[in-house]
């Protein structure tokens, strides 16, 4: 592992809950690790599995999806769709040799600024312990092909 290794996390936060929770964490001046790069989407249901694969293919150490709590989706049930995709994608990623800790879905409401801090810090800590992402050698060429296309 290189010295001072800092994992990079691509975070997809929904506009109505988790993005606002991260705003609240800011307004409340809660300090957390600077490893996330937030990409705002209107709903966690907008997160196409391709976004996650692309992030891993382009070198992300972890991907975090943040959505509204079950039953609280601004669009009624987009978060359930996100959850279904999450479970399927998690299996695919496992077969690719991507450890479970690297892909996470969290329900964080607009009032839970503190939870953004805990989740990010926890994820960063776990990713640091894992070290840089290694590919499953069996499928690496295939993955590179995807990345190149």
């Amino acid at each position, binding site marked *: 592992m290189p010295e001072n290794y*800092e994992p*990079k996390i*691509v975070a997809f936060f929904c506009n*109505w*809950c988790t*993005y*606002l929770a*991260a*705003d609240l*964490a*800011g*307004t409340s*001046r*809660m*300090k*957390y690790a*600077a490893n996330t*790069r*937030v*990409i*705002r*989407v*209107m*709903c966690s*249901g*907008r*997160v*196409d*599995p*391709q*976004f996650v694969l*692309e*992030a891993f293919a*382009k*070198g*992300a150490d972890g991907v975090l999806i943040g959505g509204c709590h079950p*039953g*609280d989706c*601004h*669009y*009624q*049930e*987009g978060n359930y*769709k996100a959850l279904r*995709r999450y479970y399927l994608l998690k299996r695919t990623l496992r077969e690719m040799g991507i450890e479970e800790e690297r892909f996470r879905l969290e329900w964080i*409401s*607009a*009032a*839970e600024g503190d939870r953004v*801090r805990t989740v990010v810090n926890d994820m960063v800590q776990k990713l640091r312990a894992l070290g840089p992402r290694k590919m499953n050698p069996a499928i690496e060429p295939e993955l590179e092909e995807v990345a190149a296309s």
Partner: protein
Amino acid sequence: MSERNGIVRIGVYVCHCGTNIAAIVDCKAVAEYAGGLYHVTVSRDYKYLCSDPGQELIRQDIRDHKLNRIVVASCSPHLHEHTFRTAAEGAGLNAFYVHMVNIREHNSWVHENREAATKKAQDMVRAAVRRVVFHQSLEKVRVPVHPDVLVVGGGIAGIHAALTLANAGKKVYLVERQPTIGGHMAMFDKTFPTLDCAACILTPKMSSVKAHPNITLWAHSDVTKVEGYVGNYKVEVARRPRYINEDLCSGCLECIEACVYKEPKFIDEFNMGLGKRKPIYIPFPQAVPQMPLIDIDTCIQFKSGKCKKTCVQACGDRHAIDFSQKEEIRNIEVGTIIMATGFKAFDARRTPYYGYGTYPNVYTSLEVERLVNASGPTAGDVVLRDGRKPKTVGIIHCVGSRDEGTNRWCSRVCCMYSLKLAHLLKEHTDAEIFNFYIDIRTPGKGFEEFYQRLLSEGVHFIRGRVAEVTDWALDPTEENKLVLRVEDTLLGTVRRIPVDMVVLSVGIEPHEDAQDVRRLFNFGCGSEGFFLERHPKLAPVSTFTDGIFVAGCCQGPKDIPDTVAQAGAAAAEALALIDTGFVEQEPNTAYVIEDECSGCKTCVPMCPYSAVYFNADTKRAGIHQVLCKGCGTCVAACPSGSIKQHLFEDDQIFEEIEGVLTYA
């Protein structure tokens, strides 16, 4: 990529926000870095970009450098996206060529390491620069605003909001769960600190609600369904049966007099169980609507069907009593909604060490409000449940407030109403009164003066949290008394104070079903259950759902003046929407590229709004633009990538992903 969108000329602006951003993020370095990125024509850092000169700087650059994309790295887009979009429009650039990077809430305010924070800002700016290349000119969608308003909750907040709107000529539907409007304020005796009588100032407003031609009042009713969006809500209201036909009832109340129960026998909810009522009853004399209702749990006709129905006889040829009345469903269309659902008083049984429910002479503050009230169960005579008149009274502050075990927040009103009750109890009984407090909080007009007045009236104040209330006498002075055991933190000693009556100053809590209610209306709640305002300072009555506003204690504990002020503000916000006549919506809708659609129908069940349809003729999917709310769930689901979403195009997001990850 740039051929598709013409020659791309990007302006990048990095805001210092005074020192809010600049203290942690090296804004100059970020701007310099951005200046070296592909397509970037101008890159600057500036102290306050949201200021007039800051906006002018952007406008001038657009004109001078023919910029056609703008990236602003500053605060959350929820705060200033509108500002910078408007600025760009001022220079003739379509608003949707602007993209914001959040380097304040998501960066400088949450990080401490300058190097890491600057690196993160650079990554985010790089992503944005790559993203905006794919931005397109879009038109805002204008939707009309229905001029009618729904006010949910008929306490003082709902009443004030409804009257303000109705006086401005708007049609208002006021829906109240209880059989009468008035809310908690109707139960109060006097109001602090002026000691004017609550009923005297409230009941005229209640009557005006009923009499107002622009207000439709539905008491004893629930909102059961809410659909639609700002300007165009479709609401279903269930009107629970009162078993009284409101068109025929004249409000003479002779039926109550005539009930086969000669004496009131059942627990009277309005008087907190201290009084009794009949199965057919009116909650209190000035109730609005002025009309009785029948409680089917106690009415003999409903229980056995074998009542003499003396009420029906008394009603005579008015025929207003209708035992077969059913729930009625009303469907209305409104443009805006004001939530004024109020609060629940803390249940004192949750603090068993204070003996509420165990010792009959332990009362909650709301019960005492009824006890000292001239129209209350004892006609204002303060007598205990055992018939004695109290000679000593202990008032315990902060019951269910400022307490890790129950609720952590300060309920804001308890200090003042405890002082008021101390004054009233002293006036009614001349008893010796002890207040047990943590801190006395009197931040309000005339509040501190009222506290000083109480001090001079000889009311005792003991600083300390009461440990427990018991009836165990340790010496003869404590016989037949309730003993409060408390550490007097000013004397530094534990004291035992024997009293005849204990008053628990219970705090303000969200309703138990607050979460269900806000889910029904689809807006946010804080973790404690109070409705979440859009911004605690700058949008205190708005919610994150456009067109829905909050007023009163459903948003957080507050006193009557603040509640009324907030209700007025909510009404003003609704009026502003109605009088504009339309709202502009984000054009972030999804659309189908028909040529690429295979007609697999995967997208159709994704949409909760039935905006996605399958066209059987063309065998392609389509999306009704008016119905689409722009969540993008169908976009993510489309296997062929033939559904796209304005403002969140796949291309744009892929560029962002690559942008944040590229190590430059």
